């Protein structure tokens, strides 16, 4: 146990010793040629970083190209399936299975009534709503009960329990669910009326264990939220759609995910040992061999942080949570034959979660240093430009596919100009703190009740 605890430090020491040995040998050759050691060191470091950044850029271009290609293939596939099988011929209303909507709520008093009322308007004949009050200290329970009492047609149940976190609340909902399918969502999100019909049709395929929904930002009120709106559009229209093409979506978003209840029970529901329980559960499903689809027309409208510090708090938690979930399933990283596509998914997550923020930050520091030291600021400009071009191309594609506001493409430039630099700093610190095993708390974002 002790060895495992300190293994990361041993690895770090080995790397430092190796690098020092290489430099020491190089020193001998410099002495022979009467050169400067600091100059040699600088040349070595700059050359190593240049090679690394070149590899990173190649990977990045490959990543964008692959995601756009697969995403477009998925788009074509969904268009052709719609053409072949019109939705109204899909199933009779009377044969649609029951779906239980689980709404975990912790201090969502401001938004819970609007959220539950919006759920009552869903276009589906056979569903129930279960609100799980996770030991709120405000009036969430009373407000949810108020809506439940005034409702006659659709069953609304409100369960209150001691505060135990979102994972426990969702598990409570799963246990109480009477439906064959369970839709998990956030207490502060609003669903599009076609959500249940759109998601349920994927379960005709017996290999599909869960369906991830689309998430869009509702409070597009300032530059932070507008850039986040673009981020969500890109993340879902490009990454999620591409993953859906290979039936291996890596994160079923917390605001909207539908599951077979039997599958949830099979994997033991949500675990509360990570801060990204949705990512952890998705990986558990993938490891068990279940396929996960993405449904772009099922939309959850969510309120995103409108201030910088709340945004950093959210991203900090996401970064650490995803790293925890990846570590938990890290055995698949080294078993490509056994794990198959899951191995690729985990490496992809590590690329997105660790390599990308570290590399962009490293690139910025490197090119800023070269610009200041050697007067080559144009290099930084070209570095920035190529990343921005990739962002703009991806944003344009996603805006067209999602039929979103064209003005969002402009925010791709803002995204690269300042937004991602600030976010990446937090992600890097979060990764370091996770690596060092710092304690952290869940945190609760303050809602403004925009729904």
């Amino acid at each position: 146990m002790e060895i495992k605890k300190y293994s990361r430090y041993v690895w770090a020491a080995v790397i430092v010793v190796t690098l020092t040995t290489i430099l020491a040998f190089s020193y001998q050759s410099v002495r022979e040629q009467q050169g400067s050691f600091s100059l040699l060191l600088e040349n070595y470091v700059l050359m190593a970083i240049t090679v690394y950044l070149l590899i990173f850029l190649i990977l990045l271009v490959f990543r964008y190209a692959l995601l756009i290609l697969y995403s477009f293939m998925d788009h074509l596939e969904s268009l052709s399936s719609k053409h072949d099988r019109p939705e109204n011929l899909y199933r009779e209303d009377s044969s649609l299975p029951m779906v239980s909507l689980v709404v975990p709520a912790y201090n969502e008093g401001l938004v819970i009534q609007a959220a539950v009322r919006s759920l009552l308007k869903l276009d589906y004949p056979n569903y129930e709503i279960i609100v799980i009050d996770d030991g709120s200290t405000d009036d969430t329970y009373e407000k949810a009960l108020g809506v439940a009492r005034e409702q006659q047609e659709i069953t609304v149940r409100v369960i209150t329990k001691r505060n135990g976190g979102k994972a426990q609340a969702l598990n409570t909902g799963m246990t109480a669910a009477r439906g064959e399918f369970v839709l998990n969502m956030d207490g502060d999100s609003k669903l599009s009326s076609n959500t249940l019909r759109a998601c349920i049709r994927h379960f005709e395929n017996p290999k599909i264990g869960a369906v991830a929904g689309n998430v869009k930002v509702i409070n597009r009120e300032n530059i932070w939220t507008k850039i986040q709106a673009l981020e969500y559009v890109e993340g879902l229209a490009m990454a999620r759609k591409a993953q859906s093409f290979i039936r291996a979506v890596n994160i079923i978003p917390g605001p909207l995910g539908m599951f077979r209840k039997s599958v949830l029970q099979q994997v033991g529901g949500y675990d509360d040992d990570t801060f990204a329980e949705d990512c952890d559960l998705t990986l558990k499903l993938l490891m068990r061999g279940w396929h996960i689809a993405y449904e772009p027309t099922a939309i959850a409208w969510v309120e995103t942080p409108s201030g910088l510090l709340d945004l950093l708090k959210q991203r900090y938690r996401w970064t650490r949570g995803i790293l925890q979930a990846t570590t938990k399933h890290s055995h698949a990283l080294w078993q490509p034959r056994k794990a198959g596509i899951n191995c690729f998914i985990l490496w992809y997550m590590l690329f997105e979660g660790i390599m990308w923020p570290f590399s962009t930050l490293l690139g910025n520091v490197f090119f800023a240093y070269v610009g200041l030291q050697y007067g080559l600021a144009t290099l930084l400009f070209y570095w920035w430009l190529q990343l921005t071009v990739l962002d703009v191309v991806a944003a344009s594609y996603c805006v067209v596919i999602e039929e979103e506001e064209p003005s969002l493409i402009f925010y791709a430039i803002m995204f690269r100009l300042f937004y991602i630099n600030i976010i990446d700093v937090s992600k890097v610190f979060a990764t370091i703190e996770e690596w060092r095993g710092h304690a952290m708390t869940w945190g609760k974002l303050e809602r403004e009740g925009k729904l």
Partner: protein
Amino acid sequence: MDLISILATVILVTTIGTMIVGVGAYIAFKVRDKRKPSKKRNDDTLDATDQSEPIFLKRYIPVSAVGPSTYEQ
């Protein structure tokens, strides 16, 4: 100074500026998080197992206001 040089200077200044803002914002977020009072730590009603026990306060009645026989009982 040509256009590329001007743009390069703008990007250089922006990049350095945003990285400094990023570090500052991260420190501010951590400080703000630490300053928020932790309910558990300040909640005196929690016992060793983190279970909260109800506190029943007894109304204070001065001795002089109570008859000697009642008080003794």
